[in-house]
């Protein structure tokens, strides 16, 4: 219960004004960061979309419930009117069914079928492929973004359709989470994304590095790989005066496939993330998730 109280006392999410401050840091000759802000830095060997979401705090969950409940009430009121019209249409059809199909009964909106984006989707962040902070001579892209302090889950690589759905991959069956704290740049390390795997495109094995072939074939190497920041990864000199802290990971997941994309898991990370079949193992502390 003490833990629950502590969770409940966690800060609510950002206001609309604060949300405006949360954005990628662009590649400009000089960089001015807010010393009180939280930032996430990550790298990718090639330009890629990389998605994280922030875990909602209990007050945010409560706020979400209220908004969802309101939306359901509104949708249901609309349905009541539509249903009355349908009843009349049905009676008209019964009186004179020639040449027409029976009108279809409108589906009653419920909490189970309400079209209302899940909370994690509201808290989803996208890094790349645009808005790159830096690119080095080897082609590595660096992304830097101001974020709301909290715990973040590496979710996948998804190109999201603004009208719904997306394409790409989620690491729904196993991933990592880390904390991003105010006053720090949290260095996530390097995230390598592959748009396909040997299941989708078997011929990729022919072009793979010899040392990767068996892992790609067996599934040990997945569509997303994370190399944690060891503190030795180069850091852009424009950030030299800021506090940069390597992310401390814990295993996380499973996570729903919110966008109906390819489902995969993060490649195991020595000392951090392992798998016992589909069981996600936090190497430091034991099984994670359920």
């Amino acid at each position: 219960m003490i833990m629950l109280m502590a969770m409940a006392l966690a800060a609510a999410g950002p206001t609309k004004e604060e949300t405006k401050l949360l954005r990628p840091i662009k590649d400009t000759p000089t960089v001015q960061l807010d010393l009180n802000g939280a930032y996430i830095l990550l790298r990718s060997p090639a330009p890629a979309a990389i998605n994280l979401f922030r875990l909602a705090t209990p007050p945010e969950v409560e706020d979400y419930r209220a908004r969802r409940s309101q939306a359901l009430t509104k949708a249901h009121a609309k349905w009541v009117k539509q249903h009355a019209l349908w009843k009349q249409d049905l009676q008209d059809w019964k009186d004179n069914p020639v040449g027409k199909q029976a009108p279809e009964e409108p589906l009653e909106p419920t909490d189970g079928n309400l079209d209302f984006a899940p909370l994690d989707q509201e808290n989803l962040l996208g890094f790349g492929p645009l808005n790159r902070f830096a690119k080095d001579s080897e082609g590595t892209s660096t992304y830097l973004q101001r974020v709301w302090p909290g715990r973040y889950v590496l979710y996948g690589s998804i190109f999201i359709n603004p009208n719904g759905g997306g394409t790409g991959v989620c690491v729904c069956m196993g991933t990592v989470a880390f904390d991003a704290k105010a006053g720090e740049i949290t260095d996530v390390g390097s995230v390598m994304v592959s748009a396909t795997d040997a299941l989708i495109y078997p011929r990729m094995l022919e072009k793979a590095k010899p040392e990767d072939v068996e892992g790609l074939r067996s599934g040990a190497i997945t569509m997303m790989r994370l190399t944690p920041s060891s503190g030795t990864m180069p850091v852009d000199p424009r950030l030299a005066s800021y506090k940069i802290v390597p992310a401390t990971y814990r295993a996380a997941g499973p996570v729903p496939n919110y966008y109906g994309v390819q489902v995969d898991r993060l490649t195991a990370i020595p000392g951090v993330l392992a798998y016992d079949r589909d069981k996600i193992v936090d190497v430091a502390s034991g099984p994670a998730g359920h």
Partner: protein
Amino acid sequence: MRLAAVLAVLACCAQWAEAATDAANAPNVPDPAKLELPDLSAPTSAGDEGDFDKYFYFHRAETTFEQALADIRECDGYARGLASPYGYQEAPYPYTYTMAGAIGGAIANMLVAAIFGSAELRKARRTNMRRCMNYKGYDRYGLNKDVWQKFNFEEGLNRVDEDDRQLMLAKQAKAAAMIQPVGRILGR
């Protein structure tokens, strides 16, 4: 502030209670003895082998029917984009059993299908099922298409009726747990 904290705790507990209710509403576990399967040991032809990436069944030794059914339903949930709307939680229940999740990726993906076509959506479902079941330690065995169609479904632009889906998933679970597999193990 203190009141807000208490309310938030109550909300959190209510969320877990709701999860438990959802789990209670999970589809029933049918009696496997009443599930009819075709003869999976029927010989396959060289022509069939070319389509083993599409037509196959899963099997894992020392697995109960109940466990196989839970695994197949979970993978089906991933493949169709089921999700509880209330966000990530390390709750001790499989979210894929909650019909509250039938929105999310399931509906949104129809827009993707409209762009890429139904065939791509069917292929995506197959690869998701194969990847998920492979991670769970199931092997794959090839089947003739006609045999496969008797207890499997493909899903593209047209959604599969929920009762039909659950019946076929249960039959697949019976094959996964209770049938002595025949033939060679295919790759994942």
